[in-house]
């Protein structure tokens, strides 16, 4: 068991190297050779989906520095500690809707979809040509949307939230700030 390694991994989710008391509360199950994170907010299937999304939105670079920040853990911590019940509920609904649609489109469970197929689908959702339509949709009142649009609204609430936490986690980290000299105040 390497508990210090586990805590360090969690700390890196926040881009810091000192574990705060809150971070120490993160429950981690440790084995001799690996660390399995028990998420505070995300279910196992949600975490797997979020992980695939974060790694596509913000792929890790391994040169010149090895990036170690875990954006999925970061999102999990932020949701657990700072997002209200309504936001949590909307996130879960959106995750489920996205998972269902992916599964339907590929005729298999999401965790069975290959990386190649996942990325191909991802590109249809994260299409820059859709930007105006998506953000206009998210400004609408969901109660006034058609059933089909409601599903799209719910999915994009989830997808844009994941993307926002990728941006927030990445661009306010010590590594990013040190490299760019851009410090968020």
């Amino acid at each position, binding site marked *: 068991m390497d508990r210090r390694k586990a805590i360090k991994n969690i700390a890196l989710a926040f881009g810091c190297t000192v574990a705060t008391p809150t971070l120490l509360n993160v429950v981690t199950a440790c084995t001799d050779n690996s660390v399995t994170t028990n998420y505070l907010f995300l279910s196992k299937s949600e975490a797997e989906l979020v992980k695939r999304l974060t790694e596509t939105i913000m792929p890790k670079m391994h040169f010149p520095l090895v990036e170690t920040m875990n954006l999925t853990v970061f999102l999990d911590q932020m949701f657990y500690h*700072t997002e209200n019940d309504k936001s949590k509920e909307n996130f879960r609904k959106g995750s489920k809707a996205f998972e269902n649609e992916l599964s339907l489109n590929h005729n298999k469970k999401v965790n069975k979809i290959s990386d190649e197929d996942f990325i191909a689908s991802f590109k249809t959702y994260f299409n820059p040509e859709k930007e105006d339509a998506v953000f206009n949709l998210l400004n609408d009142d969901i109660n006034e949307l058609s059933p089909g649009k409601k599903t799209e609204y719910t999915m994009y609430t989830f997808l844009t939230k994941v993307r926002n936490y990728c941006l927030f986690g990445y661009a*306010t980290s010590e590594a990013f700030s040190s490299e760019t000299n*851009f410090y*968020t*105040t």
Partner: protein
Amino acid sequence: MPYSNTNNTFDAIVIGTGISGGWAAKELCEGGLKTLVLEKGRPVEHIVDYPTANKETWELEFRGTPSLEDQKNQPKQARAGYVTNQGTKHWFVNDLKHPYNETKRFDWIRGYHVGGRSLTWGRQALRLSDLDFNANKLDGFGVDWPIRYKDIESWYTYVEKYIGVCGEKLGLPQLPDGYFSPPMALNVVEEEFKSQIHKHYTDRTLTIGRFANITGNETYEGRYNCAYRNKCMRGCPLGGYFSSNASTLPAAERTGNMTLRPYSNAYEIIYDERSKKAIGVKIIDTQTKEKLTFYAKVVFCCASTVASTSILLQSKSKRFPNGLGNDSGELGHNLMDHHFRVGATADYDGFKDVTFVDNRPASFHIPRFQNLGDKATKKDYLRGYFFQGTATRGDWRRAIMELSYGLDLKETLKKQGPWQVGMTGFGECLPYHENKLTLDYNKTDAWGLPTVTFDCEFKENEKLMRAHMQSEAVEMLTKAGFKNVKGYDGAFAPGHAIHEMGTARMGKDAKTSVLNKYNQIHAVPNVYVTDGSCMTSSASQNPSLTYMALTARAAHHAIAEFKSGKF
């Protein structure tokens, strides 16, 4: 000097340690008066009690985002939009422990600790002018100020020399110049905007704001020049900006005449029917809930506008059944605040090779250009406003409204975005008698004291002014060649500017005002009220410099009266 249980009699008592209380403490102590300084909240020692001053975003819990617990505890403080983050939340109250009531929405944003809001103020240090001191008399709203600019001019200078104000002299009658250290610099886009304003307008200019941050070569005891950290609201270990903690309270302490007592919730000023003067102050120790009484010949009420007015309203006696000094019935009325968050934003297509460094703790300033007393500047509303704003280059947040992803996105974030400018008007609110605060004795706080109820709104004059603020901002940016110019008028309620004032106004007549020209209660001359509650009109300028100048002036008056045996 630490508080001792054996001593309950002093020459003077100051209630509050914020920007006014600190000045009262300094001047009274330096004037030789043994002074008890009461603070409702906890102690805060300069430098050592600024826990987040040196932290970067990634070192704050949740990258600064308020936790669910914070959101539950500070729902009203959160209305300000910027004070409850992890870097500054400890300077603002727990709304559950310190409740208030709203007949109409009022954002009462405040902190209870030594230094008060002097630790978190916006630091803009602007003088009022005779345009402001004459305004009520000329248009009939409110009562006439009992002073004019000449009465306070030397006190502005006195304060500016002590606190350090950087800025540029402009020679404008509506915004008198002060004693300035060198101004901070405009950036290239702000310089371009200034140049374009001069090209298209003859009635306005753009300058860097006048801020109480130290620049230049003068020295200030225990303080150092602003290091451009732009983390002022967290407390500055250098004392780079003025606060009670860094400046006036240490000065008072050095005299040996100050006794500072935190955790002291003042709730009544005791009136003596025989001498017709105040003789002391009653407090509740907020830790022990013990009730204590302290005696003095002079009382300075500097607890902040709402708290001071609340104390006066609670100070009932046979002579003053409606609150101390409330012969006029105006105590609690004429509540004002500034209104802002209306203006325009735009992009600038140029200077792409110039890197923006986000470290200047100051904004640009476009001085008031409306209703200056001549026909050419007359508008369809009364009084006026100025603009403040900043030009920046977009950071990572510019990518939020996109669907981009991948390594390209990461590389894009490492470059600065295009230049953008945002500006807001900052406007005067008229003194309406019906805008008021009252006490609710049926809803008491944790110490059994009545809570405050606000009934206040902006009216037609403020709405007309806001429309003009937005249209002028759009026009200026458009004429200056900025792109994608967008006007805005954000949701807004009184209190939001954190400049509440006016509820114990100064005036010439005891029948229509609470305080005289030296900030004394008309009928109780040994009680001085020198925080925002004394303001007869709000003007449009940020008010703290005026509070400090009025406090210093009143303290010197009190010292003279005390030494001549009048108290």
